[in-house]
């Protein structure tokens, strides 16, 4: 969806610009826990400097346990604020004509809308982070109202977006931020609304309606983030809460992000697709930890814990018994074995991948594996394939991986054919050749494709390598059967 400037009706201009009148501040003792000037400063530094102050107050009040004002209070306040901007004569007239109160209905609607939004699902490390996120949400909600989107649609969509991004971990956000722009990921003529509505389990009309509303909210959202996306080098000062909202705005703007998040959730549901949780402790002379263990043979006598010798003095017989049964403890240095798991992904780059949301789904799987690398639990290698297998990319450093992600635009997916058999065999061969170099173990092969060709690779060719298969928007029973036999995750029609 393209982000275009939206005209706001005249009567809403003041509404957007000025007071909100909708929250009671600081009734509790939390008063001024947050230094609002610091919030303003922080907002400036992340490119949200254009937001009006009242909205910032509202955002702060909401974390300061402020609450929404009732109807009469809002009326009172709007009148007060309105009259303060009037001249003497006008004020006199106002006593009869009630100019100043005419917007109170609008503010009341805003208050209702905001109370329907689930501010609790905004998480932040500190209350300031939460306040900043609140500010962005309030500003967006207010503007959405001003452009005439029905209130319950606004709250539904915002809540949906907040829920989708609320649980995102920092590393997921890191990766999502490197995704290329939507226009680079999907050619405009390949949008397949039928497939999309099937994926989401909604009718095509609902889908289009959703996409439209979301697009409008998203353009408002990204407007209030202003320059947030530009300065990448200063990412550290963006709190996670704001970065999550940034993802949320993308999620609203790009319908296919929904597919991406859905697939990554599906992938998370399988134990087989999680990195193996297994750390061995090996005895080593230069280990950094010590442990006590029972003695295994008599040549370990000198390493016995000193307390043992005390037993010898106290009761020589008991000492001999313990010695005979080898039930004394000895000290031993150990080291944690730091072998990681090796994942190798074969990714389809044939032209057909451009269709539908296949690229997004492929990215979801790739990102899922990259997260394991970021957590230092695994080493990832991958290659693209079409009728042949392209060069291999090993992910050692995470910033490299992010650069690779940025490169994956749709015109990269231009292969002529899909040779899955070749990809499988080549993948096995490449795993064999790297598994020792990178000091990794328990290799697993992952294949993401939309090909439905028959498979002639036999189970024993895999040599115990677990195979995971993700077939996007297509079906391939041969491949599924093969993966199931190795105990891997096998999903089709994603």
């Amino acid at each position, binding site marked *: 969806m393209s982000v275009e400037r939206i005209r706001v009706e005249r009567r809403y201009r003041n509404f957007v610009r000025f007071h909100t009148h909708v929250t009671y501040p600081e009734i509790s003792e939390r008063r001024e826990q947050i*230094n609002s000037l610091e919030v303003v400063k922080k907002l400036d530094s992340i490119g949200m400097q254009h937001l009006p102050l009242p909205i910032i107050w509202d955002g702060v009040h909401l974390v300061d346990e402020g609450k929404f004002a009732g109807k009469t209070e809002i009326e009172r306040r709007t009148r007060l604020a309105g009259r303060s901007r009037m001249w003497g004569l006008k004020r006199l007239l106002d006593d009869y004509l009630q100019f100043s109160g005419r917007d109170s209905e609008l503010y009341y609607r805003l208050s209702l809308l905001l109370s329907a939004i689930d501010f609790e699902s905004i998480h932040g490390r500190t209350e300031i982070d939460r306040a900043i996120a609140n500010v962005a949400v309030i500003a967006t909600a207010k503007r959405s109202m001003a452009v005439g989107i029905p209130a319950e649609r606004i709250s539904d969509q915002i809540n949906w977006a907040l829920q989708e991004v609320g649980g995102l971990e920092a590393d997921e956000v890191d990766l999502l931020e490197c995704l290329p722009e939507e226009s680079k990921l999907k050619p405009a003529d390949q949008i397949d609304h039928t497939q999309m509505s099937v994926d989401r389990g909604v009718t095509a009309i609902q889908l289009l309606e959703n996409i439209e509303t979301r697009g409008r909210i998203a353009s408002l959202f990204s407007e209030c983030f202003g320059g947030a996306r530009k300065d990448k080098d200063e990412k550290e000062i963006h709190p996670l809460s704001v970065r999550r909202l940034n993802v949320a705005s993308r999620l609203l703007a790009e319908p296919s992000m929904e597919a991406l998040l859905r697939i990554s959730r599906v992938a998370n549901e399988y*134990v087989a697709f999680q990195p193996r949780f297994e750390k061995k402790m090996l005895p080593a002379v230069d280990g950094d930890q010590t442990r006590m263990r029972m003695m295994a043979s008599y040549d370990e006598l000198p390493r016995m814990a000193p307390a043992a010798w005390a037993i010898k003095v106290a009761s020589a017989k008991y000492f001999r018994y313990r010695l005979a049964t080898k039930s004394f403890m000895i000290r031993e240095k150990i080291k944690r074995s730091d072998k990681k798991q090796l994942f190798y992904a074969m990714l389809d780059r044939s032209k057909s991948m451009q269709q539908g949301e296949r690229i997004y789904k492929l990215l979801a799987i790739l990102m899922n594996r990259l997260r394991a690398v970021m957590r230092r639990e695994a080493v990832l290698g991958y290659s693209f394939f079409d009728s042949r297998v392209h060069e291999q990319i090993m992910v050692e450093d995470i910033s490299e991986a992010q650069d690779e992600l940025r490169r994956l635009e749709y015109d990269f997916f231009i292969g002529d054919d899909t040779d899955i058999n070749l990809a499988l065999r080549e993948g096995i061969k490449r795993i064999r050749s790297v598994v020792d170099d990178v000091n990794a173990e328990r290799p697993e092969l992952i294949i993401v494709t939309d090909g439905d060709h028959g498979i002639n690779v036999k189970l024993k060719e895999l040599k115990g390598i677990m195979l995971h298969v993700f077939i996007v928007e297509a079906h391939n029973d041969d491949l599924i059967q093969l993966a199931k036999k190795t105990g891997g995750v096998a999903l089709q029609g994603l």
Partner: protein
Amino acid sequence: MQSNDWAWLPTPRVEILPRAREALDKRFVYSEEVAELISAAFYEPCNLLLWGPGGHGKSDMVLAALKALGLKDSEIFIQSFGEGMSEDRLWGGPDMASLDTCLRYDTERSFLAPRYKAVVFEEIFDAPAQSLLPLKDVLTRRVFMNGPDRVQLSAKVVIACTNKDPREFGDGNDAVQALMERFLLQKEVRWPSYEQQNYAELFAKVRPDATPGGRKLHRLLAAVIAGLNESKTFVMSPRMALQSLEVVSNTAKMREDRCIVADAFQSIRFVQGMQSYTADLSRKIERRLPTDSELSIPLGQGDFSTQDEGPLKTPRSDIPKLTARTLKSRFIHCDEIVQVLTHAFFQPCNVLLWGPGGHGKSEMVMAALRSLGYSEDEIFLQSFGEGMSEDRLWGGPNIAKLDVCLEYDTERSFLPHEVVVLEEILDASSQALLPLKDVLTRRTFMNGSTAVEMKSKVIIACTNKDPRQFAKDSDAVKALLERFPLQLEVRWPSYEQSDYEELFRVANPKASSHKRKLHRIYAHVIANLNDDRERGFQVSPRIALGGLRLAGNSVGRHGRKKMIVEDILTIRNVQGMESYKRDVEGLIRSALLEGGVEVLLSDIDERTERLHGKMLSINKIFENASGLDEDARLEMNDRAISEMVELMSSIDALKNELEYLQVSDPKLQKWQELSEERVDQLAKEIEAGR
């Protein structure tokens, strides 16, 4: 070895098969073939090996069959092998009396004793090869040479159980291969498949009097469990399935209306073994439940495993309320732990709590136990750890009897206590854990020749180590972990400012509003120290509370009225922070700018005060110098002047800092003005003094 004396078994030969079959069929599903094999082993005495994945009740089946065949408890010998197995343990331990002359074993205490007719070895292939080798010989020759004496193996049937697959195990290890050849009959124990109907069949077997509601629950639960299974990587064993049933139906029992709601199924996550389910569990469970309306299944009497009030001091019906009330008032984020402890006390069964240190696991456990009416000395608490050894576990050796035989002073061990807390259990070496495992299963401990009953109803183990790390590494530990049917990782769902604030509020419920404000500032500061990444550094509750106490302590110690930055910096000295890599001071200062200007202001005030004192002392130097002779005076003046310069630069720094501070609250603004005035005044005084 063939003997024609068929009367060794109380059951006539023709009866063996039907009896075994009947006994097993009563309690187990898919037991026909096992019954077949056990009867075959007894019909013409020979050895039997049962193998297969854990949790299928192999040992239980064997015991049930042996009992059905008329063998008494005293005629069956059961020994657990495993990593910690050693040769002497196999032969009954050394004979203390003979120890001075030669090493002989006390075979009366081993499986060789003539009273045993059948022997069961558990986890046999987990034992190190050096202890398996001699066993092989004895099984072949049926005679053990104990020093000069011949000891006859009188048991006719040896049944071995193992979780390991002998096919993977056999090649490359001759000792094991040879031992395996001594077992004529071998059988893999596993279900034909692990689908919904298999689990449903199991549930129907163990709860024969289920009400229609109960049967519906069985169907649903079976569907949920089958949905969690993944071929090869994760299969719910029958034991886990049964424990799930127990937990889920108990959640209904705890409710007033005795109804199962959708949430009840989520408590499957507490079941032992589920901690290795690394994927998204709750969504997977939800997916299998009917999505339509509110799920609510009423259960009846027949659906619960027990009806009485339970063996603990507090009757079952009071446990949920008591536990929840006690813990929720004192700890935060304890919902899960309340649930798991409630289940543990309710059933009652053992529970393992694990997770990063400093989250108050042991404290919570002790508080919960005390609320159930156990006094301090009725709760047995033992710290395990690296130095734990077998004799400490059983209360230490009985020194008086040491010359005759080795007996333990079990009165001092956990055995006679109803509730037991074991700390750092996974740090102990596997040799110490092995015997514990046996006792937990059999509930009796053989102390020399007397049996000591284990009276413990609930054993709560706490550890900082992640049990998943032990999954492949150590089978002894793994087997021990299986004795704790409920397990929970204790950690906070999030480490944010509001969490710490809540922690401080609960820890100091009566704090004044001024104190509470400080708590907020402190919470803000430590939340800023945390890492955004999931595996990154998080300030644990213990560090947070310790740091807060230390900061308050430092304020009082220096006789200050207000907290300044220096006080907050004391968090660096709290245990656990030494591994913190980032710049603590910088982070704390920037955090204070955002949400703790008060502290910065009082810090400036304090420093102004100090500079003022310094100015006075410099003035004094000047004064003193004026009375001295030329050279000394010049020297003194030089020193004073250099100090003066330093003083002035720090005043400038202070001024800058004050200007940099931006506050919006009118009260704070006033404060800021006051401080500014004070600094200006001091600056002027210094100017004047020059």
